[in-house]
């Protein structure tokens, strides 16, 4: 065969077939910029899109490029909205997306939303527009009620997943569940844990009974423990179970029913729920412990000895979420019993108390990192820490992907040396070469940011609070962290200079959040002027920023890259810095 000078081209169908093996967005994005024809082929066959910031692109642009999408994932509000730092009404409305997709993607099957405002109207539109709709995941969303859920239940004939993960739902009635028709037998996953009021138990039981493929069931607190065995008997193939309230009067028959029901669930791998946990009923789950890989006890307000009795039987445990009631002693036992542990989250039982209310300190985390070689993800709230401990942790676990430490009192120093934690966190970023997410706390100077900039080459998300001395800190991060996508900062003395000096960097990131820092209004305007592909939003509840001097710092600043231009759904305390004009009011 003669070689021509131009590259041989595969027929489109072949390329399309090859691309169909690419599931990761990154790979698909990479492929689409190789050349025009690959771009065209790829865009026709992409079925799944992920949009990390719903304001980064407009629905119309997405629809123009990708014509036959089956699965959409959208994220709205900035992460700090979880901690009430983003005022009500900021935005993140999903309706424009639903309306646009209803027209363009009749075969859409999956919608996953995070931190977005979803209305009953949107839910109704979803339920009526997509004939083959299968998956709805609403993570930390708000704005809808059980009426919207009723529409989904009633109209989505092939619904597989309904997951309301920690959303805020207006609970008008528990009867929405009865709207699932008798013909609906396709459910695989149902998570209603966040619902406050009772759902109709008989409707729930019937639904579970006619869903042979149900593998994940997360109940809400209102489902009483005495009734749990009924559901378990209907769904013995469950893989993930979230109990309702885990308390009942001491009655041997209730206990034995429960224990028997659990032992019939041979495939159970994950447990959660456990509100109001009564220790007397914990042994009912012992029969499934050895197979458990995931255990969420973070709502169980029981003491360490009871926690330990359960955990030390879970030899296959990979993920544990627990309250600090577990204490250092409990964590030491965890370290000895659960050698496959990959993820640990320890939440504070008394986050606003001034004093340590339980003996949970750096010791627990050190023990787990020493004992569990596969540990790669940590979220740990405590009141005391030392650089020595952090260095030891870094040495034991060089494979950390996610390390989030919250020393509860801001600016707490190393309790042994009274020094800042620069060395400790420095050790973490230096040793953990794969670190993608880091949250800092405690007393920290600019030095720690130097280390982060120097070593955090794979760092994608960084959260900073009450740290640093000067602009240099922020500059180190912006200039050094090559993979940085999300940066969120609060209450740090960072000002205009590092932002302006690293302005171009901001276009390589998804977003930057800064609140209670020292960035001036003037700098915001300047940034917006120089970088038209950034939306620079100023949130200030004191009134329009131009009613104060330009050098005056803004309360909150949210900068994100976008190809969608300015947004028009901002509330009156958010100002977008326009190129040229200066100020635009919503």
């Amino acid at each position: 065969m003669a070689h021509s000078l131009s590259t041989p081209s595969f027929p489109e169908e072949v390329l399309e077939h090859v691309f169909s093996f690419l599931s990761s967005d990154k790979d698909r994005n990479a492929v689409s910029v190789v050349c025009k024809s690959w771009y065209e082929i790829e865009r026709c066959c992409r079925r799944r899109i992920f949009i990390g910031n719903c304001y980064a692109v407009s629905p119309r642009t997405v629809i123009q490029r990708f014509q036959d999408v089956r699965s959409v994932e959208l994220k709205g509000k900035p992460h700090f909205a979880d901690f009430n730092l983003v005022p009500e009404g900021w935005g993140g409305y999903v309706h424009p997306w639903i309306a646009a997709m209803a027209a363009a993607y009749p075969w859409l099957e999956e919608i996953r939303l995070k931190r977005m405002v979803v209305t009953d109207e949107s839910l109704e539109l979803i339920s009526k527009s997509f004939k083959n709709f299968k998956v709805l995941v609403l993570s930390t969303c708000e704005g809808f009620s059980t009426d919207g859920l009723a529409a989904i239940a009633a109209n989505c004939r092939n619904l597989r997943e309904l997951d309301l993960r920690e959303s805020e739902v207006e609970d008008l009635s528990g009867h929405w569940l009865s709207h699932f028709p008798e013909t609906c037998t396709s459910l695989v996953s149902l998570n209603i844990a966040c619902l406050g009021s009772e759902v109709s138990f008989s409707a729930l039981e019937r639904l579970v009974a006619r869903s042979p493929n149900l593998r994940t069931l997360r109940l809400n607190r209102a489902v009483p423990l005495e009734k749990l065995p009924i559901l378990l008997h209907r769904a013995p193939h469950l893989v993930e179970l979230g109990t309702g309230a885990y308390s009942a009067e001491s009655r041997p028959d209730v206990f034995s029913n429960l224990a028997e029901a659990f032992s019939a669930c041979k495939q159970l791998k994950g447990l959660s729920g456990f509100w109001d946990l009564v220790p007397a009923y914990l042994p009912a789950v012992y029969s499934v412990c050895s197979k458990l890989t995931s255990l969420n006890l973070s709502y169980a307000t029981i003491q360490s000895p009871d926690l330990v009795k359960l955990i030390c039987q879970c030899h296959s445990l990979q993920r544990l979420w627990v309250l600090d009631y577990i204490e250092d002693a409990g964590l030491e036992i965890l370290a000895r019993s659960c050698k496959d542990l990959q993820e640990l989250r320890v939440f504070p039982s008394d986050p606003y108390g001034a004093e340590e209310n339980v003996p949970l300190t750096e010791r627990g985390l050190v023990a787990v990192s020493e004992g569990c070689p596969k540990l790669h993800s940590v979220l740990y709230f405590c009141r005391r820490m030392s650089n020595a401990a952090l260095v030891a942790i870094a040495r034991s676990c060089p494979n950390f992907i996610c390390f989030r430490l919250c020393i509860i009192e801001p600016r707490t120093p190393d309790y042994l040396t009274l020094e800042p934690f620069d060395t400790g966190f420095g050790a973490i970023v230096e040793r953990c070469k794969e670190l993608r997410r880091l949250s800092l706390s405690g007393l920290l100077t600019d030095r720690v940011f130097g280390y982060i900039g120097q070593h955090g080459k794979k760092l994608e998300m960084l959260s900073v609070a009450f740290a640093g001395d000067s602009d240099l800190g922020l500059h180190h991060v912006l200039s050094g962290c090559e993979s940085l996508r999300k940066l969120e900062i609060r209450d740090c003395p960072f000002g205009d200079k590092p932002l302006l000096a690293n302005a171009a960097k901001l276009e390589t990131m998804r977003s930057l959040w800064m609140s209670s820092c020292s960035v001036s209004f003037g700098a915001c305007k300047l940034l917006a002027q120089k970088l038209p592909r950034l939306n620079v939003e100023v949130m200030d509840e004191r009134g329009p920023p131009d009613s104060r001097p330009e050098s005056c710092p803004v309360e909150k600043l949210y900068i994100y890259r976008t190809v969608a231009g300015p947004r028009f759904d901002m509330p009156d305390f958010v100002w977008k810095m326009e190129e040229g004009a200066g100020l635009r009011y919503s």
Partner: protein
Amino acid sequence: MESIVAHENDLNLKATELRLGLPGTDESEKESASCTKNNKRSLPECAEESAKNDDLDAQHGDCEAAPAAKAQIVGWPPVRSYRKNSLQQKKAEAETGFYVKVSMDGAPYLRKIDLKVYKGYPELLKALEYMFKLTIGEYSEREGYRGSEYAPAYEDKDGDLMLVGDVPWEMFMSSCKKLRIMKGSEARGLGCGV
């Protein structure tokens, strides 16, 4: 938020100039550092070596003005509202009373009492006697309440009408939904093995 320290003379345009130089390579850097308005809330005395600004102590309107207790910082520690509410609900339940309705046969309206206030049956019965101006009598396992035409009963979680006093106090507390003071022949029927 409170009023801001004005920096009219300090516009320092050079500081906001877009350039690639490192901050700190210019002496104007020190100036701007000290002029930066500090939005930090007042925080207790940790070893503060980074304190360069004097306005660290500025109290802000949105912090609770609680000099005795620590001012709670908005959004800190970073615990999601969902989780906070769960914990708070638990605490609230522990702190608020446990009020149950009390009806008396023949009375025009019901009353409410807080069961948490009482440590045991004797106290509860005494309180009922006081509230309704009656005597309830002595409890015995065999005969219920003797010596009066009244018998205290309660409705439990299953909706059954039970005689007060048979089960341990704690169990009673967790299963009692409402109280009913029965009178006359009905009351006697409850106590005896008829």
